[in-house]
């Protein structure tokens, strides 16, 4: 499967960013993966240790946000939820819709350890404030 290729591409990006930030260790990697991206989150998790071994992100946790599929109708203008193989407008049923979300394959955020501390981009709601530098 191509999830290993995706993991290898991810490692390349993570290493570049970690170097730029002078990080000692990457602790958490946040991804957004939509059902229409063609990447399976569970396979990504399984492939991850193979790609991350002996890198700065070896012990990093992968946190994957599975984005919902949403479409916007070009005919009636409604925005509605949809399924991967049924992307029709939920209001009027027309097929002429535009995908609003659901095909994401994004690295959204990294949490890094630097000089014995933790760097992250969150407001602190999910991480202990004491770990801020």
């Amino acid at each position: 499967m191509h999830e290993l290729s995706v993991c290898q591409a991810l490692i390349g990006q993570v290493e570049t960013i970690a170097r730029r930030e002078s990080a000692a260790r990457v602790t958490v990697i946040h991804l957004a993966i939509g059902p229409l991206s063609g990447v399976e989150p569970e396979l990504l998790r399984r492939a991850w240790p193979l790609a991350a071994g002996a890198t700065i992100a070896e012990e990093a946790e992968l946190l994957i946000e599975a984005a919902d599929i949403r479409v916007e109708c070009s005919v009636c203008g409604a925005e509605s939820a949809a399924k991967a193989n049924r992307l029709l407008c939920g209001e009027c049923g027309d097929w002429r819709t535009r995908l609003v979300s659901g095909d994401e394959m994004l690295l959204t955020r990294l949490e890094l350890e630097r000089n014995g501390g933790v760097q992250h981009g969150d407001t602190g709601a999910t991480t202990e404030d004491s770990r801020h530098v």
Partner: protein
Amino acid sequence: MCDTCGCNITAGNQHLIRPGGKFERTASGAESVDVLRGLLSENDHQAAHNREHFDGHGVLAVNLMSSPGAGKTALLEATIQALAGELRIGVIEGDLETENDAERIRRHGVPAIQIATGTACHLDAHMVHDAVHGLALDELDIVFIENVGNLVCPASFDLGQHRNITLLSVPEGDDKPAKYPVMFRAADRILLTKSDLLPVLDDFDPERARACVRDLATPAVMQTVSVKNGEGMAEWLEWLRAERAAQGERVARGESARPAVQPDGAHLHAHTGAPAR
């Protein structure tokens, strides 16, 4: 680069970084390492370079995708024969192993570069880049990239092509577009191949296949084609001629084109800023 200029912020993810959004940058988060970068941005960057390369030589690049055995190579052979003396064709062949398909193509007097991917289930932009440099693009009008036979992985990787063709062969069954939506959604045109088998495999309903495609909200046309009895070949060749002519006009205007459906944000990854489509 795309991790600094914000070009990765699309309709699909902007809610994450809007005020109050999940990844909003705050005063206390000054050391934030928000990224919002496509996982395959390295590949996309290389693909943009490949596309520039094709455009620079006025070549139309067409990516053929399908399951193994749907008839990609046979379609290419018939296409090459039909367009001999009219359009100059080159082929990049992707398979896990063997040079068989490239040899089949070369028998028709057409240059073919075989990429043996080993265990990789798809072509990526870097593999195609290496192969492109083995082709004399100045002497070609159309480059076909025959992707690895696989209805899953190839859909996720931009190669630098202008158009995607997905083949669905009659023996595979009419509900394949519903089972593999990512692949069929990526197609600019869907070819229902081996249509000469329709009378035998009469449980295949082309209208049902068409309805499955329509459910994917894609305007892609689905046409039947058979290299055995020639059905649909004229329509396919006419589409190719029109696409080749359109590519020539775009290049003259300094523009380029991409497949209609691209992964989130990829349409903003233009290498030169040339209009995408």
